[in-house]
């Protein structure tokens, strides 16, 4: 029996070692040692998936986020929403440079003003003023007003369908129109930011009349929002850390209905840590139609064939597999501006292969084959290959043009005439002419 159990454990360990992020397994969790136990369910979920967790107190000086300019961890979780001042290596600037080196962040905020709150503004997020959590009178419930059940959207790529509502408490933020923002969970339409007690009705009206971001209200506010940088790193901003806590994961939405917090937290983490919606271009190639060898140099008006191979990361097995389900991939052939922009459709029967044939423009210059595929939530696919398009060489023009027949005839006539004249002059007899002008043989 013991042996069987061991076998099971081994199998579980083996299975879990498959599930990895596409960008590394080391996670730094910045959390007060006292509060570490509050997030056991979430953190154990990460461990089960195969992540290697390291803990650091928000006041401790080690382990460092970056050592010798190299990031020490693949992912960083901030479960210290109330911490006002971090050690010197955790500054908004250092977090931005971490993103530049493709480290993913999961940041939780609170209703307190911290240095991270001001960093949120750099990501087109405007958190509600300090001290005003998200509150809602709907639905009627026994919990405090600032503990709000929110139904996750059913159309999200990041979250699975039909998830139970999740408990949230914390600050909402107004979303800017930056397209790199990926809304994951928005506030319900009837919720708004206000002091839990003592907030007056008149102050809400006054705030709205101020215009702009005066009133934080409605479903255009985010409570959990992702951001994908141009470097491909992902940040998740959550308005409250309680969302990830054991307390909310175990708290029932209504009698007998489990909250969706546990599942929600795992799915948000798997997006943030580059597990879900991760794509990549394996390679691209181009060649002239009817040939197979790629060239650096094409002639204007050549028929070209461009092929790209796209893979997607499957976290269940931790493998990349060819992915043919992109329906709206486009290829651009650009010289400063795109001269050609056409669909790059998947090739049937060849998984992961996208190919298109087109005619190069009749304009010479240095062109680029460009794939620039950006969709909210998905990894951005960027590829650029430079080729030259040149006019035909001197011997590539047509040689036999019907319009030039008279010229050909003229040239050939001249040549033949010259040859005949030479032959006759060299091989002929010299005749002498008498004075009467009558030809007579000299001999």
């Amino acid at each position, binding site marked *: 029996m013991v042996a069987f159990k061991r076998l099971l454990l081994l199998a579980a360990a083996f299975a879990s070692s498959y599930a990895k992020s596409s960008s590394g397994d080391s996670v730094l969790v910045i959390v007060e040692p006292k509060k570490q136990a509050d997030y056991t369910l979430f953190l154990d979920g990460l461990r089960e998936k195969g992540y290697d967790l390291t803990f650091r107190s928000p006041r401790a000086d080690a382990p460092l986020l970056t050592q010798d300019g190299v990031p020490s961890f693949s992912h960083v979780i901030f479960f210290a929403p109330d911490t006002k001042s971090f050690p010197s290596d955790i500054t908004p600037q250092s977090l931005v440079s971490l993103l530049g080196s493709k480290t993913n962040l999961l940041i939780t905020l609170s209703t307190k003003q911290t240095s991270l709150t001001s960093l949120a503004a750099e990501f087109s997020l405007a958190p509600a003023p300090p001290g005003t959590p998200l509150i*809602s*009178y*709907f*639905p*009627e419930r*026994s*919990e*405090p*007003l600032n*503990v709000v059940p929110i139904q996750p959207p059913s159309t999200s790529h990041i979250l699975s369908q039909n998830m139970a509502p999740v408990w949230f408490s914390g600050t909402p933020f107004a979303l800017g*129109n*930056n*397209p790199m923002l990926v809304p994951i969970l928005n506030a319900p339409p*009837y919720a708004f930011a*206000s002091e839990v007690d003592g907030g*007056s*009705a*008149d102050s*809400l*009206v006054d*705030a*709205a009349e101020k215009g702009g971001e005066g*009133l934080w*209200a*409605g*479903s*255009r506010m985010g409570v959990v929002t992702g951001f994908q940088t141009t470097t491909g790193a992902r940040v998740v901003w959550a308005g409250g850390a309680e969302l990830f806590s054991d307390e909310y994961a175990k708290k029932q939405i209504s009698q007998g209905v489990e909250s969706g917090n546990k599942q929600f937290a795992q799915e948000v983490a798997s997006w943030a840590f580059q597990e879900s919606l991760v794509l990549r271009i394996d390679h691209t190639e181009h060649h002239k139609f009817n040939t197979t060898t790629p060239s650096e140099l094409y002639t204007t008006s050549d028929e070209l064939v461009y092929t790209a191979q796209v893979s997607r990361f499957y976290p269940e097995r931790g493998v990349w597999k060819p992915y043919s389900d992109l329906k709206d991939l*486009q290829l651009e052939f650009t010289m400063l501006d*795109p*001269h*050609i*922009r*056409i669909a790059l459709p998947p090739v049937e029967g060849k998984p992961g292969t996208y190919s298109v044939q087109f*005619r190069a*423009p*009749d*304009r010479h210059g240095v062109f680029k084959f460009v794939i620039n595929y*950006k*969709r909210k939530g998905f990894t951005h696919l960027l590829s650029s290959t430079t080729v030259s398009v040149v006019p035909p060489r*001197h*011997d590539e023009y047509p040689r036999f*043009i*019907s*319009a*030039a*027949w*008279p010229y050909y005839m003229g040239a050939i*006539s001249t*040549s*033949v005439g*010259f*040859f005949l004249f*030479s*032959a006759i002059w*060299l*091989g*002929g*007899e*010299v005749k002498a002419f008498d004075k009467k002008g009558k030809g007579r043989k*000299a001999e």
Partner: protein
Amino acid sequence: MHVFVASLLLLVASVHAKILTLQSPRFVVLDSQGQQSRSEPISLTQKSRNPVFLNATDTLKVTFQVVDKESGEGTQPHQTFLRFYDATTDEEGIQPIRVTQGGKAKLELNMARPPLSLPPTGDVPLQVMLYIGQPNFSPIAVELFDLHVPHSQPPPAHPDEASFHLLPEIHHIFRPDQKLPYKLVSAVFSGLVIAPWFLLVGLWSQVSPRLTHLFSPNVLPFILSLGAYEFLVFYYWVDLKLGQVLLCGGVLAIINLFTGKHALSSIAKRRLNKD
């Protein structure tokens, strides 16, 4: 601890949650002269069947009084929000309504000066909802009516927003192919070009020179190498590349030089002998 107490208190409160109600809820549409064009009571249970149309100068007035159903006294709720929602674009605007201490609420929506909370609008009507929330009372959510308002400017989009969607296709417009004249025309003019040959052949019979030295070993190599040169030029046009022509032409030139010198000197010698 105090959170726990607060939640316990709320639990107690919600069990005995009091009920709010709206007294004489009503909306009025006024035109630019202040004339009433529509006036209807608002039902708390059913959305108005007829959508409300506002043009650029109309004013919408919504009035009601929030009262505690039990005591009948007016009360000022914490949350009295009107929500305008466009389901197609997901644009939303929240407009808080000012309510007096006595619970009297009045909202004027003047389309000549639309409030900032009104979302950008298109063809689809805005759904208008009313949310009322007050501690210790059951909240109220009422679907009021659909609201047609004049089109607005679309919301300002981020410059990069377009690159996150399918972009319009671009096709290169090629220069039209060169137009060639009819082949018959080319053939006629080619005929004109070679016409002098017929004249030449005619005149040949008049001159009828005798080519007695053509095959003499002194002259023939030069004539052949000249012919080879002409053929090389012709072949260049048909198939060869410049380098090949220069190479062959260079070799031929040397042959030409010697055969030519020999041929010409032999002719000169022949003439001198004759004299």
